[in-house]
């Protein structure tokens, strides 16, 4: 199907790219249907809402910049996703690219997706070490040292 996207205008997407977030995202509970699209630049993805073109989030896999990220999902979080096997569980962080200042990723409220069922949720990590603004480039640079 053809989807109007915030980043790239109309884009052809496949059914397997469509995801359901039954609870929406925090503060955006009314938007529940999304498509996961590869951004034109790696290592980013776009989570584009199907019903409202302006609702689109840039995503990154935390493993790209942060070692051993484990959001500490609860039994209930996993139940909500239909208890995916580890191989079917995708974890993303939402990226913010401000007009000025560093590009950051939110590791405190990760998006978790069951790849098999296409069901997703925004979880709240119970771990204090994760914040809503991790400087992506700084953490990548620190890791190389």
């Amino acid at each position, binding site marked *: 199907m053809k989807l109007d996207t*915030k*980043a790239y205008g109309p884009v052809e997407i496949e059914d397997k790219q469509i995801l359901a977030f039954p609870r929406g*995202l*925090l*503060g*955006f509970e009314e938007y529940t249907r999304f498509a996961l699209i590869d*951004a*034109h*630049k*790696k*290592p*980013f993805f776009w989570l584009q809402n199907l019903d409202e073109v*302006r*609702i*689109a*989030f*840039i995503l990154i*896999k935390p*493993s*790209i*910049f942060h070692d051993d990220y484990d959001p500490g999902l609860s*039994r*209930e979080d996993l*139940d909500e996703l239909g208890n995916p096997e580890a191989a079917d569980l*995708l*974890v993303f962080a*939402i*990226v*913010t*690219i*401000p*007009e000025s200042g560093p*590009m950051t990723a*939110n590791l*405190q*409220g990760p998006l978790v997706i069951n790849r098999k069922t296409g069901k997703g949720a*925004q979880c*709240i990590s119970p771990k204090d070490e994760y914040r*809503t*603004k991790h400087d*992506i*480039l700084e953490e*990548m*640079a620190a*890791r*190389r040292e």
Partner: protein
Amino acid sequence: MLILSRKKDQKILIGDGIEIWVVDLRGDTVKLGIKAPKEVKVYRQEVALEIQAANQAALSSSLDLPFPDVEPPEHKTD
């Protein structure tokens, strides 16, 4: 709004499944124990609000994605 006084170890019950009790009191900090059914999510308010604000900020991100000037390492998730 209902306001109740509780001493240490005293409980409040909400409906059938939710229990809240005072575990400890120290200075201006109250430590609470909370038991709730699994479908009831319990968060610190400021954490949920912070994530909401971060989601809002993320929406106004530049559409022009910066290309990281460091090579992403091979990652293990898939």
